[in-house]
């Protein structure tokens, strides 16, 4: 899937940009699946930049598709992980050792970027200075406001909470801390009246 244009929405809904190289002592690039294409775009085979770059690539769904191309960029460090949760420890270690003056670049799905952003923020880096570019699926991470469970990969509105089973409608209100959008019971005022699920952004 190529670049998606998210419709304008409320101020708490995150917006994403286009990655560009910045001045910094080190560059930490964290990408998922189609995000590899964004890396290739913005890095532009800049040897000087790549010599100070660490690419953490999570091939959640794309298998081997992008690996050799990314490897050939010959960045200072390169890691391929099978999932976000398997890669998070490596990210935490990298953040422990990183110095101020490092730049952060995130690209992939909203949920992926949101969670990686959280780790970087926890280390003490402001979210306003972390670059993000959306690539790939537009599915959302949703938090059920009632049971607090997070349901991944939500693509319809309403949807069923993967934890407590309530039917929830999808809000654009987003929490950076939870890296998730808010889901609220859709039939709270009329039990059982659940509208037909519609795909997001149609």
């Amino acid at each position: 899937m190529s670049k998606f244009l998210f419709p304008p929405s409320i101020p708490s809904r995150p917006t994403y940009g286009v990655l560009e190289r910045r001045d910094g002592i080190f560059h930490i690039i964290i990408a998922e699946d189609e995000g590899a294409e964004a890396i290739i775009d913005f890095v532009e085979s800049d040897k000087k930049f790549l010599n100070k770059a660490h690419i953490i690539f999570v091939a959640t769904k794309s298998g081997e598709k992008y690996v050799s191309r990314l490897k050939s960029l010959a960045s200072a460090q390169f890691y391929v992980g099978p999932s976000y949760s398997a890669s998070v420890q490596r990210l935490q270690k990298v953040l422990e050792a990183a110095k101020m003056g490092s730049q952060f670049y995130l690209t992939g799905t909203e949920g992926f970027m949101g969670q990686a952003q959280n780790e970087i923020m926890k280390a003490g880096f402001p979210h306003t200075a972390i670059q993000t570019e959306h690539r790939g699926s537009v599915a959302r991470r949703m938090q059920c406001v009632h049971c607090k469970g997070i349901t991944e990969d939500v693509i319809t509105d309403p949807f069923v909470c993967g934890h407590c089973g309530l039917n929830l409608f999808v809000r654009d209100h987003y929490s950076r801390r939870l890296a998730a959008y808010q889901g609220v019971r859709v039939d709270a005022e009329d039990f059982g009246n659940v509208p037909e699920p519609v795909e997001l952004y149609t």
Partner: protein
Amino acid sequence: MTAAPQKVEPGVDIIPALVDKITKVNELVTRFEFKRIDGKDFPVFSAGSHTVIEMKDGDRTIRNPYSLMSDPEDGSKYAISVRRDDVGRGGSLFLHKKIQVGDKVNLTYPLNLFSLDLRARKHLFFAGGIGITPFLSMIMQLESLVGSWELHYATQTEELASYGEELKNKYPKKVNQYFDDADQAILLQKLLTTQPIGTHIYVCGPAGMIKWVTSTAKNVGWPNANVHSEEFLAPKPGKSFQVRLCKSDLTIEVGENESLLEAMEREGVNAPFSCRGGACGQCETEIVELDGEIIHRDHWLDSEEQDSGTKIMPCVSRFLGNSLVINR
């Protein structure tokens, strides 16, 4: 307005005080300690705060902001240190030459435009000359909170390093001093590239030093949110100009060595203010008519607002041209 409206008074609440102690720190710097006239404790404040001191020099009222250097938890006194400025508008000279123990002054409630970011893993301080003052209270607050800090303090000479010796003796591992006359300079590039994620830097001192530290940080790749600076913009003198105050139905003359805010106050016009240094926005005033150019010297209005010619910050900005009418 809804219920029980209480008018927003211009300016801020003030605390009547008197000068309790004057101590010469070195050739250029003198410390002043104040006590409240009513005997109560001064309000507790957050480190980095300043107060605006209102003093009377004959029939002229001087109002200058100074960082509070005293212990934030010690309400028995407020302390400031002032560097003598022979070419300025006279505030510091008045303090150095004329004020005496027992003299009455008014102090504003503390206002903080240079606060610690308490989320920081480490606080890195850069002080130049008299810029050491806010860091004195910050160090006290951080020590009581068990926070991590480090100070790099540059002065022309060792003698002029106010409080340098006591700080160095008390915190030998955290305090680093640099003297121009011994050719010592802060190794800024090295320092800025070796800090762990979560470090915040704070710089206070002459404009040149602030520019040097903030631009080096930017070039190295520091995010703006982790870089904090405070510079007291004393209103710079300029050509005198005339202003019409349409609400007060007055036309006033702003002299070379006074700000528009001071001129209004001199004329008895109740104009709101707070920091008096172009940073907090409280004195923002609507321009009703403009035939000429506003010389914006503030840090408050954005460039669009400045270019629009609809707003002016009277505490620091000036005017050049044929006519200016403002809504005061």
